[in-house]
């Protein structure tokens, strides 16, 4: 049988995902509004003292980003699983890891990238010093793809379960620990004028590692969920 060229299939899947996301654009806003609400809660909870907020800003923004990502992960494979699209994709002869990667890339573009774009607003709210802003954006730009890539494994593992959402957060949050530590420390270091390239470098290597490994784990989890 003549299998479709891998690149063509990859592009077709990405285009379909964007079209679907566009048709459901109201749903895309939910995690972002969630992100804004969570960050708003912190000044209300700990008090509006500018120095305190500036101190906790990197952590708060990063944790909010983490929560918002996990919120959108449950639907990553669910509709494709439930309407039979996923089984057809598995049988199409295309590499399942590549399919998983395409879905993850689409997920990052519609769920992760907006977080990066919103971060200046969040930084302003949390009174993050200007020295940290650029590094915050950089760390989110490097880190949110990792959130999507690792989260996709959890999404694929729980896709066949009726109520997978809570389990999903239990599975992926511990895996996010190193990323959270590196990212917040990079931003905090930048604020006090300490070197931060080491942290960013480690985050980039984490991105490369998860880009090469996570799609395979996701693929294995998808195959398992279909059995």
């Amino acid at each position, binding site marked *: *049988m*003549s*299998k*479709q*060229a891998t690149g*063509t*299939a990859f*592009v*077709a*899947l990405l285009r*379909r995902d964007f*079209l*679907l996301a566009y*048709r*459901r654009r109201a749903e895309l806003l939910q995690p972002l509004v969630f992100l804004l609400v969570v960050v708003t809660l912190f000044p209300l909870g700990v008090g509006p003292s500018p120095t305190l907020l500036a101190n906790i800003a990197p952590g708060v923004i990063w944790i909010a980003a983490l929560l918002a990502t996990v919120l959108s992960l449950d639907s990553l494979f669910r*509709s494709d699983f*439930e*309407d*039979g*699209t996923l*089984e*057809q*994709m*598995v*049988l*199409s*002869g*295309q590499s399942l890891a590549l399919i998983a990667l395409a879905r993850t890339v689409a997920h990052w573009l519609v769920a992760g990238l907006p977080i990066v774009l919103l971060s200046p607003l969040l930084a302003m709210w949390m009174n993050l010093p200007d020295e940290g802003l650029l590094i915050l954006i950089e760390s989110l730009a490097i880190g949110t793809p990792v959130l999507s890539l690792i989260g996709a494994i959890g999404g694929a593992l729980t896709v066949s379960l009726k109520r997978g959402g809570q389990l999903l957060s239990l599975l992926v949050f511990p895996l996010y620990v190193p990323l959270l530590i590196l990212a917040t420390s990079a931003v905090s270091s930048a604020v006090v004028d300490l070197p931060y390239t080491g942290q960013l470098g480690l985050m980039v290597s984490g991105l490369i590692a998860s880009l090469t490994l996570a799609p395979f784990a996701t693929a294995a989890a998808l195959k398992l969920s*279909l*059995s």
Partner: protein
Amino acid sequence: MDLPNNSHMLAVTGLSFERYFERVFEPVSFELDAGSLLLITGSNGCGKTTLLRLLAGLLDPSEGKIQKEEQPLYAGHFPAIKDDLSVEENIRFWMKFMGTRKSDQMDGLCEQVIEEIGLTPVAQQEGRTLSAGQRKRCSLARLLFCDESLWLLDEPYSNLDPQGIAMLDSILKTHLTSGGACIMTTHGSLRPEGFDLQECHMISGRERYAGEAA
């Protein structure tokens, strides 16, 4: 290809699948050659769908062997239609993703396929607006643009009206006369008419167990 035991399009020996540490169905063996239609019958829950999913490669056998020449086309219970995409967008996506027989003339082929499955009037409607029968027709569109020679159809007649059934029968006839083969399941009420077919009756693991105990 010259070896006699290799000449079948599909050969299944002692195939079985376990769930909850029990056989879903008793082992089955059969061979399928080009041009033939195998009908799999049996009561509800006897493992017909499981058998097709095994043959498609979605499940791995617990016992036995499946020898197949190539990846078959599988049309299961789920139509693989996106609610937010129109019929045409759905079909076009699968054409792009899976590839078609004549990829150079995709536009013409897509229209032609939609006409053949009788969905031209609803081609621009979203998937969510389709009836169960229309969904079934839409999911059968793949039969017209993919070039797999072995088809695995799970209850293909369900939800189809008489015209739909006639349409499917004619698609199937063309496929079989051009050297294809097909395995389909049915729980009995609807059967393909006017075909020269083999039949395989399945017994569920539980039935067998109950029979032994009595």
